[in-house]
């Protein structure tokens, strides 16, 4: 059933209508069809209204998601480049880029933002939006979370790499800066650097 858990009343109404319009139900008294037809019309209107509300809600959320996804493109591009830097050790989350593109493609776009004919087909047709489909907000959170974690890891590795480079050259003019930073920072966070250098 594609009505989704929030619209089970519509699902029940639809099933009841199908049962009432079954030839075996109408055969004893075909004139009952008149009443069934009235109920059918009411059901279509209710379903169309529910779908219209769902359509508007989906596309309101989808617009927000598209903005958020667009804002992350630079980060995806940076991650794709960082993955290829061999000095930064084994690549992290190599599938994030493709998952991100899949996510971006999965957010539907529709020019029919509102006011489509209540008597028309039960779906918006460009492209078809099922009434139980929601904007992929959970997937966005998952992928953005994975991206952020990957970026934090690469930042850490970049930091370690930079410190190693500087430590290797004690005459570097940046050495004083490093020493100053160590004095104000928590030395525990540098443990990896000390043990591997």
């Amino acid at each position, binding site marked *: 059933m594609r*009505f989704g858990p929030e619209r089970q009343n519509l699902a029940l109404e*639809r099933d009841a209508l199908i049962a009432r*319009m*079954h*030839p075996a139900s109408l*055969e004893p008294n075909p004139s009952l069809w008149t009443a069934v037809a009235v109920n059918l019309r009411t059901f279509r209107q209710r379903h169309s209204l529910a779908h219209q509300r769902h359509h508007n809600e989906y596309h309101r959320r989808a617009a927000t998601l598209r903005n958020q996804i667009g804002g992350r493109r630079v980060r995806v591009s940076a991650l794709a480049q960082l993955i290829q830097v061999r000095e930064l050790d084994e690549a992290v989350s190599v599938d994030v880029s493709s998952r991100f593109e899949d996510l971006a493609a999965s957010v539907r776009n529709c020019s029919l933002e509102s006011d489509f004919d209540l008597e028309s087909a*039960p779906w918006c047709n460009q492209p078809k939006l099922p009434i139980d489909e929601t904007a992929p907000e959970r997937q966005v959170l998952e992928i953005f979370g994975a991206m952020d974690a990957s970026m934090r890891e690469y930042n850490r590795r970049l930091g370690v790499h930079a410190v190693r480079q500087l430590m290797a050259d004690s005459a570097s003019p940046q050495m004083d800066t490093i020493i100053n930073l160590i004095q104000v920072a928590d030395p525990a966070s540098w443990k990896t650097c000390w043990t591997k250098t």
Partner: protein
Amino acid sequence: MLQLCEEIQKTRLPLEGFQTIFSGSATVADKALSNQEALTGSAGYGSDYIGFYNTAEDRFGDAANLTNAVEAFKRAKRLGMLAEVLSRAKTDLDKIR
């Protein structure tokens, strides 16, 4: 009787169409139509009255059952007239999932 036979055949077509749209849509009218078809067949050219009587008795038993069969046929005709609109409505509802 020839007219009834033609009407039965015309009524059968839309009712048979239901079976592709509604699952398990064989109706009690099916039996009534079959019985009346048999009766009209036995009333055709070359049949004798004894054969007609035997078919009537075999298929309907008594006059009340024949009356019921004729009523069922009338309802089946009305149902047949709804075939197109019912099929369209069912197809629409099937899409709403």
